[in-house]
Structure formats: C-alpha cells, structure tokens
C-alpha cells in the first residue's frame, strides 16, 4: 500500500560542505542516509527520518539541517496536521498509534506560571559560597513525635524511645525515575546507577529487575520496583535494594500496562526478568492481586515482611482525578513513600491517545495530595516523590514548595544522556543508544562518560537550588517543603490558585 503520509522532517544537506565521510549513514538507525559511489554523492530517504538530530550533531562539517517538514495541509485548527497524519496512519495500519516519551500537548505548564521569592531587607539572603546550604533529604515514614528519655541533671544523656521507621537519606532531593533494563539499554541503565551512586542519590530499576552483577555495587542506590508483571522479583532482589516501589500506575499511561516485545528480550534481560529469552514481557494493566486498598496494604506488608521491615515501601500512582483521596488511602495502607507521576511523565511506549489525554498535571495533583494529607494529619507518615515533567532546578524548587519531599526525573536524565525527545522509543531504534537493545546502537553509550554527564546534571541543579534557597534566606531544604509563602502565581485563574494554595503575584 502506498503511504499517504507526509514526511515528518525535511533534510537539507549542504553539498559544498559535505565531504562524503558517510558518518551520517553509519549514525542513522533508520537508514535515512545512503551513499552512491557513481556520482560520489550522499542521498536520503526523508520519510524515514524521525528528527533525532544524531546525524546533524555528528556531521564533521555541519552540513546537515533537519527541520520539521514544511509541507502543510490547508490550515485548520480542528483538523490539524497531526490529526490528519494520525488518521492516515491508522487507515494504513488499523492499529493503535504508539508513541514514546511524555505528553507534548499544550496543557498549561504550571511551573511556568509560578514564581519564587527572595529576601529583601527584613531578612538577609544567605550566600551559598560562604555558608553551608543543606539539601540532604530523608525518604520514608517519620513518627508523629519522638519520645525522648533524658536525664534532668545531665542533658547529654538522651535516649530516643520511640520506634523509628526505615528512612533513606539522599544528598539532593532529586532521584532518577523508573526506567527498566529492557526499556532502556544496559549501558543507559548502568549509567543511571553509577551516577546515583556517585552523587549519593537513588535510581529506580523500573519493572525489569536488577541484574545480578550490579546488586552488590549498586543495590544500596536502587529503588527496586514490584510491578504488575512481577518481573525479576524475588527475595534477593528486594533485599538488595534500599527501597521498594509498588508500581500501580504511570503518568504517561494511567490505567494501562506495558509490553516489552520478545525481540528485545535478550539473554541478559531474560535472566534479569526471570522469563524465557525471546518471549514478550507483558505487564497487565492492574496488579491482579490488588483490586482494592486492602489488597494494596497486604502487598505492602508482604514486601515489608520479606525485607524484615528494613526498607521503606513506596507506592507509585499516576495523577488522576481523585489522586488526593487515593494517596490518603495509600498512606493509610502503610506506604512510606507516595510517588505521584503527572500528566507529562515519560514512557518507553504508550498508546498516543492515552499519553495525550489521560491524567492531570503534576502541579495540581501534588498540591492537592499535600493538602489532603495535612488535613488528615498524616503528611509526615510518608514522603512524597513528585514525577512527570520536571525540567530544571527551578521546577524542583517549586515542586518542593508545593509539598514534595523530592522529585523523580526521567526525561531530564535521558536528555542529559543524549536523548532529543524524538518520541520513537517504542521502535527500539534509538540512535542515542538509550531506548534500544541493538548492540550496535547501545554501545554508543559509555557508562563511564554518560554517568559523568548525569552526575554533572545533578551537581548543576543542586548548585542552582542552593543559590535560590540562599536568596530566600533559607539554608536547609526542609524549610522550603510545603512552604507556599515562597510561591506566587502569575496568569492563573482563581480556581487554579485555590487548588495550588498559592497567592497571586502581588497579593
């Protein structure tokens, strides 16, 4: 069948600059570029280009320009180009349209409508180059109060009598989000683990297990996931980690499961996931042993039993309409951490209809959850991890001021590794070596170098956070947590300010 689709990208090669080195040909995973010896010239198949920009970056003479294709249908705000292309694609294939990475639709990005505060006159700002600035964060349940035994006469003999719950400490309130080995390459996965360890924070294994050879070295930096497919879950796996996460949902695809096609299930992935090589790894939409909050509670306590109550248990949910009530139930069910993944959270593969239309923005969900947990007096019974669309250090600050203990970053970490958000993760042909199991592509990532890029990102953001905190006159991150006084809204409607619990600028 002849395709009616317009190419997504237009390629322009400056013939004068091109030295026919064929780098672009070797770099491209979709065989766009090819060489013809007869005229000694490079050619291309434009329709195969996904706009990953790998060739443009690697071309030694900067001869390549890849842009969105200029061809346009008659302008129509309702039936726009994307809608038309999708219709044609479906007419040709009869399938569900798949996509990768996060929601790219123009829903309001609240981060960009929130501004931060700084000190002037009445309290001094603090210079982070001269004074300590503390970002250390604890994830886990805190007791309501501490019962302390002390000697009246000698204040130094103090003993804590209250029972304490396991907490994990991280040096910066930024954690790498769940990305499974299988969805991403071993190299990308290992880079995350190495960077987390180097920086003193955590990475999340996703639902693909934790390879045996990595457990000793990186287990203490890992949050291991227990998802609906239960891939790779056994007592050793759980006990190797520093925290456990039950994945209920994902912001990019609330309510649906996952599918790792058999061709990606290589030997090592098969061993790690504990499934036969080459079989499809299907994660059901729900966890089939969790049809209610009591069932969730049973799983939480089963995992705690399996790990001798030594590790905090997190429950990750997608931000959906009644997220506040759900989060409250999760805390009451015994979770130590609630992770909320918003509308713009990323994915390796999701039906486009779902990615683009299901869920609510993280900012609103986060504010609502924090408010609800406080009203019920159970906010310190858990930590809140906010995920989905955190793009920069200022977003981290705003998330913390809205009530998060720390944030998960997924897409931002991928971009640091090279990702250009081409959204083709589901094809398995990631030219940047991230979302692929093709050894030719994945060897493009060298974990030594890539982990340094990730650590640099954490370092840069942490510095920026310290600068902003100092400007507010705060020298410990905990004093920003839930501190709406340091946020103001701009260009937001009444109801939005109300939900965020934030005053308008100038109010």
């Amino acid at each position, binding site marked *: 069948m002849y395709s009616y689709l317009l190419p997504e990208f237009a390629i322009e090669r400056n013939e004068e600059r091109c030295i026919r080195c064929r780098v672009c040909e070797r770099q491209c995973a979709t065989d766009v570029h090819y060489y013809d010896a007869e005229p000694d010239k490079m050619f291309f198949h434009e329709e195969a280009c996904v706009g990953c920009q790998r060739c443009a970056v690697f071309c030694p003479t900067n001869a390549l320009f890849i842009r969105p294709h200029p061809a346009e249908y008659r302008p129509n705000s309702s039936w726009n180009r994307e809608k038309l292309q999708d219709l044609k694609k479906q007419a040709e294939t009869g399938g569900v349209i798949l996509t990768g990475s996060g929601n790219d639709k123009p829903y309001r990005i609240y981060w960009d409508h929130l501004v931060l505060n700084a000190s002037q006159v*009445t309290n001094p700002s603090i210079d982070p180059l001269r004074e300590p600035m503390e970002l250390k964060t604890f994830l886990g349940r805190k007791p309501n109060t501490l019962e302390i035994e002390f000697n009246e006469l000698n*204040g130094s003999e103090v003993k804590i009598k209250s029972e304490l719950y396991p*907490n994990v400490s991280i040096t910066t309130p930024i954690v790498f989000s769940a990305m499974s080995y299988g969805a991403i390459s071993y190299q990308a996965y290992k880079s995350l683990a190495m960077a987390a360890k180097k920086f003193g924070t955590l990475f999340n294994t996703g639902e693909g297990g934790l390879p045996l050879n990595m457990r000793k070295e990186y287990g203490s930096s890992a949050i291991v996931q227990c998802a609906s497919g239960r891939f790779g879950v056994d007592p050793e796996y759980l006990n190797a980690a520093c925290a456990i996460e039950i994945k209920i949902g994902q912001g990019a695809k609330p309510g649906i499961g996952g599918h790792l096609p058999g061709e990606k299930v290589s030997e090592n992935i098969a061993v790690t996931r504990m499934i036969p090589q080459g079989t499809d790894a299907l994660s059901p939409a729900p966890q089939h042993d969790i049809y209610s909050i009591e069932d969730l509670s049973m799983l939480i306590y089963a995992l705690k039993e399996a790990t001798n109550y030594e590790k905090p248990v997190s429950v990750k949910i997608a931000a959906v309409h009644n997220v506040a009530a759900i989060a409250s139930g999760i805390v009451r069910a015994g979770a130590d951490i609630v992770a909320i993944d918003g509308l713009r959270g990323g994915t390796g593969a999701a039906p486009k209809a779902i990615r683009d239309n299901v869920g609510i923005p993280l900012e609103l969900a986060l504010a609502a959850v924090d408010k609800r947990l406080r009203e019920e007096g159970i*906010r310190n019974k858990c930590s809140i991890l906010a995920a989905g669309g955190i793009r920069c250090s200022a977003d981290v600050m705003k998330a913390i001021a809205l009530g998060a203990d720390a944030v998960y970053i997924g897409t931002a970490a991928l971009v640091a590794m090279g990702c250009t958000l081409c959204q083709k993760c589901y094809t398995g042909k990631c030219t940047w070596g991230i979302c692929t199991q093709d050894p030719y592509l994945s060897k493009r990532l060298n974990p030594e170098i890539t982990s340094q890029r990730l650590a640099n990102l954490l370092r840069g953001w942490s510095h920026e956070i310290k600068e902003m905190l100092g400007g507010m006159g705060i020298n*410990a991150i*905990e004093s920003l947590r839930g*501190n709406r006084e340091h946020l103001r809204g701009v260009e937001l409607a009444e109801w939005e300010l109300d939900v965020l*619990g934030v005053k308008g600028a100038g109010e």
Partner: protein
Amino acid sequence: MLMKKNYRSERHVPAKDIEACGLFGVMNIRGQKFGALMAIEAIKNIKVRGNGLGGGFAVYGLYPDYKDYYALHIMFQNKDIKAKEKTEDFLGEHFEIIFDEEIPTNPQVSLFCPPLVRRYFVAPKKGEAEQAIPDDEYVTSRVMYINTNIEDAYVFSSGKDMGVFKGVGFPEEIAAYFMLDGLYEGYIWTVHSRFPTNTPGWWGGAHPFSILDWTVVHNGEISSYGTNRRFLEMYDYYCTLHTDTEVMAYAVDLLMRRQGLPIEIVAKIFAPSMWDIIEHLPEKEKKLYTTLRMVYAPLLMNGPFTVIVAHHHEMFGLTDRIRLRPITAGAKDDLVFLSSEEAAIRYVCPDLDLVWTPQGGEPVVVRLNSEDHLKSLNKSI
C-alpha cells in the same frame, strides 16, 4: 485545641506580618523579686528597635496572693461592654471566678485606642465528663475559645502567678500606662519592643505572646514560616495572628509543654547543627541529632531569629543556627540577663560579672537555683 478557620484554599490564609524587634529579659536565679525599672530602662535604651507600634511585658511571681489560680488578663477592644458580658458569662460557666477587677491604669498616659483590660483569677469548673482533662488543657481550650469566638475579647495571658501587660505604644509608655513600676514585682521580667512594617494597630497583636504561663518574645523573620505553620496545623494549632512569634510560641507549646522536651533538645530542633558537624559527632549523638532533624525537619526555624521564652522557674534565649540575629547574655550576682543588644544589658547593669555571646543554636538556659546558664558560656564566641 485551637479553633480552625475554614479557608477554601490555603491561598486565602492572610499573609504574615513582617516585623523587627528589641528584646530583653532578666531573671533572679534565687527567685528574689524586683520591680519593673530594669526592664523599662533596658528596653528604652534600644528604642531604635521599636517604632511605637507595640510593646509589652511578662512578669513571673506576680500574684503571690492568688498563686493557685489561673490569672486571666483579658482585653476588650473598644471597651466593648457586650464582649465583656459575653466573656463573663462564658467564664462563669466554665470557671469559679475567685476575684476579678479592672487592671489599674494611669489616665495621664494617653495611648492609641486603649481597650478595657481586666484580670480574673479563676479555677476550672469541670463537668462530669471533663474530669479526666488536665487543668492546663482545659484552660487552654477555653482561652482559645474566647480568642476565636468572642468578638472584641482577647486573652493576653492565662498562667498562674504571672501576667502579660501589652499594647500599642513604646514599651515604656505601656509600662507607664499600666503603672508597672511601683505596682508589681516579679523574679522574671521579659520585655518586647515591636517594629512591625504593617500593623493593624491592635493591642492583642503586641508581644509577649502567651499560652498558660509560657511567654515568648521574639525578634526576626522566619523564612520557614509556611512550612512551620502547616506542620503545626496538623497538631491543631491554627495561626490567627499570622506572625512568626505565634508560630514560635505554638512550636514551644507543642514540644516543651505537651511533649515535655527540655530546651536543650528543642534548641536542636529549632536551630539544628549543620549536617557536616553532625556527621563528625560520636556515634550516639550523631544518631540522636540525625533523628531529631529527620523527624522534626518541619520545625526548623530557618532565617534570622532571637527568642526569649519564659515560664515559671525558667527563662531561656536562643538564636538561629547561623546566628543572623545574635543574642547576648550577661550575669551579675543572682541576676542573669538576656537581650538582643548588649547595650541594653550594660545600661541597667554597668558592672557585669560576665557577658557572653552564645553560638547559633546554643541555648542560654536560666533556671531557678541552678547555674545552667554558665553551660553556654563555655561554648560562646
């Protein structure tokens, strides 16, 4: 415990008042009583710290004749007689009123809109079902009821054998108005001069801030206010005055009165050591300080502050963790002084035996019949 005001959203919670202030406190560690003069003179000497929009005193050992009864100092805004009637009906219902009178004032001193201020010496009158409630809780909840439900009535203080005198004006004017010098004696005096940048000109808004016999005078701008306030709300403390002092007072009440923690530990919650320091402590202390910081992180008071807290038998001062608002301590014989300014202390006691500046986060604890205040001397700068 306190009345919750229902806001549709946090967004409608009024903004916090910003203010700077001068503080002074003096205690005789043998419990000998003395007059108001020292407190008045000291605070007068740091006039620049106030702007005449609020001043107040707390006195301990004030009512020896009624020392077994709760002394309620209550103001009625605009001398509102209806508020007085309502309050007295309420008091009559919940307390035995042993004695009550208008607090004498000097008509020669003219101040901004003075309210009617009366004192009531009361004992709880508990119903059958309330027998198990401790007296202090009983009194606190009734006081909060008056403050939040009876319009134009506001309780300045509610402890035994102590009282708060405060209002809109410079502290020396308040002292003159209530004729503190001459009429009263106490073994602890704390005083506060206020410099609000936006004030409703309301007598209840002056400091000291008080719950039962606890009083707090405070100076500073707490940048963690929002975090602190929201944490305290989980323990049913709802801020009605929207000042840092109120947050500080509730935190003291929660940790010290309700949970019974000593100030030595509470200081490590309000102004904890840096992680770098904690990491290098011996194992046992490291664990203690790490746990305190982890659990009470939302009560870290971040930003510049100095606070002087008093209750019977104890007065203590504390400054923030990086000492952005220093506090000075001094001692002469049985008198121990605390102030935001050394000048204030030196002015009333030029021949001090000792004077020192404690480190950030190191409390100066002045206790009856003890030398605990000297502990902070070793760690001073």
